[in-house]
C-alpha cells in the first residue's frame, strides 16, 4: 500500500531549480533515507513532504489523500530536527505534551501517553527538566519522544544525529532502527552520512543537484550504482576507478585499462557494449584482496602506501600510472615496494560509459 506519493514535484527559488521533477512512491512501513551532498535538495524535499515549504508544481499524497495544499499540522506527520527544536521555555513534559494539547486531546489521556513514551526512550526521569539542562543525546531523545507521542502516520527526520558525537550517533542510530522495527511507521530520513543511510534504510534515495540519481535497497545501490556519481558518493574509501576501452572479441568482452586487461565475461551488461567504447571500470576496495590462488583474475602490483584503520589495512597499489586501493584484512600486511598478488572479485565490477557516466 502506497503511503506517500510524490508526483512531478518541482521547487524553484527564483531561477534556481532546487528540485527537478521528483517522483517517488513510498510503501507503508518503509524507512526511506534521502542521501546526498549538501545542497542536493534532500532537506527541501523533506520540508515539502512536511508542508513547511510549498512546491512550485507537482503533488504530494499522504495516506491516499492529496495534501499538496494542506497545512503541516493536518498532514498527520511528526518531524525530528537536527537542532532538536525543543521549546526552550517549556519542561520536557510540556514539550512532549504540546502537540497533543494543540489537538485538543484531554490531559487525562495525554499524561499516561507521555509517560509511556518517556519510559520507552529512558527519559522518564527527565520529564520536569528544561531542555537547557539536558545533554545533546538526551535532547534528541526528547525530540524523538515528542514525535512518538503524536503517533503520526509518517515520521520525518532531518539529519537528526548530525549534532551528536560519533559514539552517541552510533548508539542513537541503533535505537532509531529498533524503534522503526517495533513500530513499523513509515519514515523519511534525511542525512549526508552514508553509514546512517546504509544501516537504517529499507530503501535509499540518492540525490544530486535536485534530481534523484538512484532509488533502491542499500546493498543494491552500493553494489550496482547506476552512475559514476552514486558509485563515487557511496563507500569509504571510495570506489576504485580505472579508465580504459572495451575490447570485443567474438562473444568475449574485456576492458583494456592500460596496465591490465580485465575480462568481463561474467558481467551483466545493461546496454549492448561496443568495441572501443570509452569506459570507467569501478571496483570497491574490499573486492581487491590478497590472492589465495583460486581467483579467476589477479594482478601483481606494488604497494606505495599503507593505512592502518585497526580493523583493516588500506593498501594503495600502483597500477600503471594510476593507483587503486585494496582493503586487506588487518593480519595481511604487505611491505612497501614489494609486489603483492591481488585478486579482483569480478562479480562486483561496475562498468560505466566514460561520456554519459551511466552504468552499462
Amino acid at each position, binding site marked *: 500500500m502506497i503511503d506517500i506519493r510524490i508526483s512531478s514535484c518541482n521547487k524553484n527559488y527564483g531561477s534556481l531549480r532546487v528540485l527537478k521533477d521528483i517522483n517517488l512512491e513510498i510503501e507503508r512501513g518503509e524507512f526511506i533515507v534521502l542521501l546526498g551532498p549538501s545542497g542536493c535538495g534532500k532537506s527541501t524535499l523533506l*520540508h515539502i513532504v*512536511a*508542508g*513547511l515549504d510549498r512546491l512550485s508544481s507537482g503533488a504530494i499524497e499522504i495516506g491516499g489523500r492529496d495534501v499538496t495544499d494542506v*497545512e*503541516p*499540522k493536518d498532514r498527520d*506527520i*511528526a*518531524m525530528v*530536527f*537536527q*537542532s*532538536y*527544536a*525543543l*521549546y*526552550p*521555555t517549556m519542561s520536557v513534559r510540556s514539550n512532549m505534551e*504540546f*502537540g497533543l494539547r*494543540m*489537538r485538543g486531546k484531554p490531559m487525562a489521556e495525554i499524561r499516561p501517553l507521555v509517560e509511556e513514551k518517556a519510559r520507552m526512550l529512558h527519559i522518564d526521569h527527565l520529564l520536569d527538566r528544561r531542555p537547557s539542562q539536558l545533554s545533546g543525546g538526551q535532547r534528541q531523545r526528547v525530540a524523538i519522544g*515528542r514525535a512518538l507521542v*503524536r503517533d503520526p502516520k509518517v515520521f520525518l527526520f532531518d539529519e537528526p544525529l548530525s549534532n551528536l558525537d560519533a559514539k552517541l550517533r552510533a548508539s542513537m542510530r541503533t535505537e532509531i532502527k529498533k524503534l522503526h522495527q517495533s513500530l513499523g511507521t513509515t519514515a523519511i530520513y534525511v542525512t549526508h552520512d552514508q553509514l546512517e543511510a546504509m544501516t537504517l534504510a529499507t530503501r535509499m534515495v540518492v540525490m544530486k543537484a535536485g534530481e534523484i540519481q538512484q532509488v533502491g535497497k542499500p546493498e543494491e545501490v552500493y553494489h550496482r550504482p547506476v552512475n559514476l556519481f552514486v558509485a563515487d558518493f557511496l563507500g569509504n574509501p571510495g570506489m576504485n576507478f580505472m579508465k580504459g576501452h572495451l575490447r570485443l572479441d567474438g562473444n568475449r568482452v574485456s576492458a583494456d585499462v592500460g596496465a591490465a586487461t580485465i575480462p568481463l565475461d561474467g558481467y551483466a551488461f545493461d546496454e549492448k557494449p561496443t568495441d572501443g567504447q570509452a569506459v570507467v571500470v569501478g571496483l570497491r576496495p574490499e573486492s581487491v584482496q590478497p590472492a589465495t590462488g583460486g581467483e579467476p583474475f589477479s594482478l601483481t602490483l606494488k604497494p606505495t602506501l599503507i593505512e592502518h584503520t585497526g580493523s583493516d589495512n588500506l593498501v594503495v597499489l600502483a597500477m600503471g600510472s594510476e593507483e587503486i586501493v585494496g582493503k586487506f584484512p588487518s593480519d595481511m600486511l604487505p611491505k612497501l615496494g614489494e609486489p603483492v598478488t591481488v585478486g579482483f572479485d569480478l562479480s562486483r565490477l561496475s562498468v560505466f560509459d566514460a561520456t554519459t557516466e551511466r552504468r552499462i
Partner: protein
Amino acid sequence: MSTSTDAMPRAQRAGWLTPRRAKAILKRGVLYLLLAIVAFFFAGPLYILLSTSFKTMPEIQAGGLMSLPHEPTTQAWVTAWGEACIGITCGGLKGYFGNSMIMAVPAVLISVMIGAINGYALAKWPFPGARFVFAALVAGNFVPFQVVLAPVSVTLRTLGLFGSVEGLILIHVIYGIPITTMLFRNFFLSVPNDLIKAARIDGAGFFWIFFRIVLPLSPSVIVVALILQFTGIWNDFLFAVSFSNPSSAPMTVALNNLVNSNFGVKEYNVHMAATVIAAAPTLILYILLGRYFLRGMTAGAVKG
C-alpha cells in the same frame, strides 16, 4: 600581575613599590577620578534639585546653592503636587500627572504589543514584500517629528481627537511602531526557525506560536521596548505641546508652564519638587527594570 609578584622572594615583595605596581595604581587612580567626575556631573544636578525642593524660599534667596536645607520642609512638594498655579488654574501638577499616566500607559502597551506582533511576522512569517515593509518602517524611524506636525494636526482634527488624551495616545502609538517593530524584528531573527517549524507541525498557529513559544523567549527585549517607549512618551514635549489643550496637557507641558510662568516670585523650591515629580516615573522604571534593560541590550553581544 599577581602571579609575577607571587614568584618574587618575600623580602623583595614586601613594602616595595615596583614600577609596574606604581603604574597600575596610577591607572586605577585616573580611572576613579574620571568616574567621580562623571558621577558628579550626573548626580550633582539631582542633588541640587532634591536639596532645594526641601528648602524654604527665604533660605534659597539667602544663597548657598550646594548646602543642605537647614529646616527641611515638604511644603514645596505639597504646593507642586496640589496647589501651584499652572496657567489660570491653581490645582498643582496632580491632574497633569494623571493625564501623562492615562496617555503613556496605554500608548506604551499598545505600541509595544503591535511592534512585537509586527516584528514577529516580519522575522518569522516572510510574505511577499516583507522586505519593503521593513525598509519603510526603518525609514519611519528617521522621520523628524517637526515634519509631521502639520499633517498630524489636520488628521487629529478630522478624527475629532485634537486636544484629547486619546489623540496623543494615537500619535504616540503610530510613531512608536517603527522603533518597536525594528527592535522586536531584530530580536526574533535570532529565534531558531526550526522552533517555528516544529510548532507548526505540532499544530500551533500564528498567534499560538507567538504567545506560547516566541514571547516567553523574549522578556529582555520586551523590557527594553517598554523602557524605551515609556521614557520617550512620558518625556515627549513636542507632540504634547502641539496637540493638547489645557485640560489634556501632560506633565511636560504643565512643568514648562509652571516654571516659565512670568507672574510673581519664582518659587524655585516648588519648581524643583515639580521637576522631580515629573522625572520620577521614568527613574523608578529604570531602577525596577534596569537589570533587564542592560541584559536586553547586551543579549545579542554575548550570545556566541
